[in-house]
């Protein structure tokens, strides 16, 4: 019977097979060569069982101690001091004979234990099992109703989170490696029959084309594979939630999970994906739709509210209702700055507050709230630095920016907002409109995996657009989105995974 250690299999991470070096190492140098490769790696552990001529090489930090003891240390200690017995034991299936020092090095780096017999023969056994944190609730993508699991920094665990939800052999996982030094694994997940193979090839090609020494994390990595590196917009949606990944897989999308990263990316992405939260789907359609409309509203408020204030107070006093005009003019009366400068001061202050709050521990974060709320909110007005109305305007647009379920898009929009404020401060409503037109033009220009980013608004697919802006009730009429180019637009039963919008 095949003897497998459950734990080590569970955390097994397959590695890319190395090409064999043209010249095989001479047996004598195998151990020495390996040790030489790891020179100055003080965390490498070397343990010898002298009387059996055995040497173990491994990284304590990468292996599971229990596996090591049960599979390697205790059995070998218990064996007779006889070369034959040891050799025979090493013939067991969990040990793998390797011949080159490159292979050994690769294995050791992946959490294997290398066992050298007489310095010349080498076997490896998988004992990968570093400590990982437990599965917790996502802090960036919380939901009120629904699953509270989120990805962690272990690829195996992340894959398990997805596989648990899609119990089908049609869920395929393809490994691609990235990073010349770091050699990170990226797992590409898709559902056979739903995914467009051309898109899949494109992702693979893009990942293979990446030339980088160390790919640190998914958010870094996705910026290396996007179509428009100079754009300020996020182009791949990233998520920490397995349920989001699964429902997007069901739409025919490809998910990419990198090892050591709790973030997965989804491709192809469109602009409207950033406005969706699993909560929309968990709620009744009316509530979900209302929330999505609210988010679209928040999108416009974030972008244009402050800019509109600046344009109106600088150029278009005719547009303001009479009653509001009086209080606006009164609150602006003591302010020494122009509306544009005043707005920029407040917007930068809000950004400072936000950035300070993001980096600070929660205990000090409260102080920031007090300083921001009371000192800046009230005293700045009393001191006559900014006007009352502007505080309200800036606060509303800041709140609106936090409504966005994706932090990425909200950060991008805040940048765009500054551009719009400048334009409307210089050119009035004309400038504001120019800015919005430029933004729309840019959004329609962008592509993701050579599919249009602004789909379904441009190219225009009315039914799909309704689906993207509202959350229509689940029913027979829902179709998979055109962007994924899936061949299977409607048929649910043949696949066995029915969850999609």
């Amino acid at each position, binding site marked *: 019977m095949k003897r497998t250690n459950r734990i080590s299999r569970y955390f097994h991470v397959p590695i890319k097979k190395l090409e064999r070096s043209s010249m095989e190492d001479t047996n004598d140098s195998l151990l020495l060569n390996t040790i030489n490769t790891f020179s100055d790696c003080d965390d490498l552990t070397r343990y010898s069982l002298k009387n059996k001529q055995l040497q173990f090489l491994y990284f304590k930090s990468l292996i599971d101690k229990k596996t090591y003891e049960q599979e390697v240390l205790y059995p070998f200690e218990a064996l007779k001091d006889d070369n034959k017995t040891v050799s025979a034991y090493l013939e067991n299936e969990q040990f793998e004979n390797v011949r080159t020092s490159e292979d050994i090095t690769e294995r050791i780096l992946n959490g294997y234990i290398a066992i050298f017999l007489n310095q010349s023969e080498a076997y490896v056994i998988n004992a990968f099992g570093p400590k990982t944190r437990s599965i917790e609730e996502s802090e960036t993508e919380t939901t009120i109703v629904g699953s509270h699991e989120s990805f962690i920094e272990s690829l195996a665990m992340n894959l398990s989170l997805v596989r648990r939800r899609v119990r089908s052999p049609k869920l395929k996982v393809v490994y691609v490696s990235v990073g010349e030094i770091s050699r990170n694994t990226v797992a590409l997940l898709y559902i056979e029959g739903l995914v467009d193979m051309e898109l899949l090839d494109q992702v693979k090609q893009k990942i293979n084309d990446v030339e980088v020494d160390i790919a640190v994390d998914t958010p870094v990595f996705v910026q290396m594979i996007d179509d428009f590196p100079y754009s300020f917009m996020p182009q791949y949606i990233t998520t920490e939630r397995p349920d989001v990944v699964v429902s997007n897989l069901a739409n025919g999308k490809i998910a990419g999970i990198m090892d050591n990263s709790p973030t997965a990316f989804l491709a192809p992405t469109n602009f409207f994906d950033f406005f969706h939260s699993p909560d929309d789907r968990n709620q009744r359609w009316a509530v979900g739709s209302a929330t999505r409309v609210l988010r679209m509203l928040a999108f416009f408020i974030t972008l244009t509210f402050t800019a509109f204030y600046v344009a109106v107070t*600088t150029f278009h*006093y005719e547009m303001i209702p009479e009653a509001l*005009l*009086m209080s*606006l*003019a*009164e609150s602006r009366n003591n302010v020494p700055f122009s*509306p544009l400068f005043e707005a920029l001061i407040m917007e930068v202050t809000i950004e400072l507050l936000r950035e300070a709050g993001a980096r600070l521990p929660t205990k000090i974060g409260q102080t920031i709230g007090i300083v921001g709320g009371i000192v800046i909110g009230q005293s700045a007005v009393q001191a006559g630095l900014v006007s009352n109305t502007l505080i309200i305007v800036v606060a509303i647009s800041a709140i609106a920016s936090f409504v966005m379920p994706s932090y990425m898009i909200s950060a991008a929009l805040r940048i765009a907002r500054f551009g719009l404020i400048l334009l409307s401060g210089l050119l009035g*409503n004309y400038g504001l409109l*120019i800015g919005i037109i430029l933004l729309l033009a840019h959004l329609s220009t962008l592509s993701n995996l050579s599919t249009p980013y602004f789909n379904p608004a441009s190219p225009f697919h009315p039914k799909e657009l309704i689906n993207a802006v509202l959350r229509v009730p689940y029913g027979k009429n829902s179709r998979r989105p055109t962007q994924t180019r899936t061949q299977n637009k409607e048929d649910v039963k043949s696949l066995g995974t029915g969850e999609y919008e």
Partner: protein
Amino acid sequence: MKKGLSFVFMLLLVGCNDKYIIEEVGFLHSLGLDVEKGSDMDEYLVTGVIPQIAPDAKNNRELLTSVSSSDKEALLDLARQSNRDVANGQLRNVLFGKELAEEGIQENIRTMNRDPKFGTRVQVVVVNGQANDLLSQPYTQHPEASQYIDALLEKEARLNNIPETRMHQFTRDLYDDGIDPVTPILRRGEDTVVLDGIALFDNAKYVEKIDPKSSRIFFFLLGNYSSGSLHLELGKGEDDKTIQLLFDSIQNTREMTITNVDETEKMKIDIQVSIKGSLVEYNGPLDITKQKDLRTLETELENRVENRARHLLSVLQAQGVDSIGVGKRVRNSLSYEDWESLNWKETFQNIEINPHVEAEIINIGIFS
């Protein structure tokens, strides 16, 4: 690069160059235009009211006056008196003094329409007296006179006691040959501004006003309106008390029928007015809880309204101002050539116009 540069230039060369930062703009709220008496040449006495935004100023408004030969020049003159740019993009009311209105305001209306900053929602008002006098009064109960006037006019227009004559409607009626424009008319009261009825214009010249008590009757003849109330006195009762009747929440419809449209002398116009409303107050001898008495009261109401309407029409005909738009209806039933050859003003004065009123009391209140 070239593309980018040209785009930047495109941005910078157009756009709003005329900055109006709100606290630096003195936005005229009301503008009063009068004829300045006494000088050998006619000059305008222009009064501008700008709401005050400085919180510690003693006055709630900035009142500027100027005497000059044109109203545009007067605006420049007003600006010379203020620490803010005087702009008329937020103008709500233009008040014409009665004397100026009698001379005709066509030229003023025309230039105001030409200025794009001049909104079409500006209320055109005639002042029975001097606009300057009305605006410059320190109303103790309403420190901000122009907003007071504005609110007063808006409320009264909603209740159909005065027509809503913003610049748009006034200009429309002015250039329409089938109707003559009307405006509200105001006068100065004791520490208040009082609505003095409806000013009737012959083209752009003020000729006559309708008493505010009859203004609802005017609306019966003008078109279909709802809301508003009508107060009638139905003679003396038993113990020498006048019988009061208040007809409220009125909905009225008007229909005009023309007979003998082809012969100018024989042309006859019937105006069918039907009014519906609730009887709020009645202190006469009739028992209004009885259907029969209620019908009697309705007939009484019909007769009273009809008489007053006839009187109103006779005033209009005597002055030759077709403020209720009979001409529009006549024009619709004539060919263009016939209408052009018709001297409508003269015809209007001579033809027979009969109002027929049909009243219906929908309810008499809940407690009776």
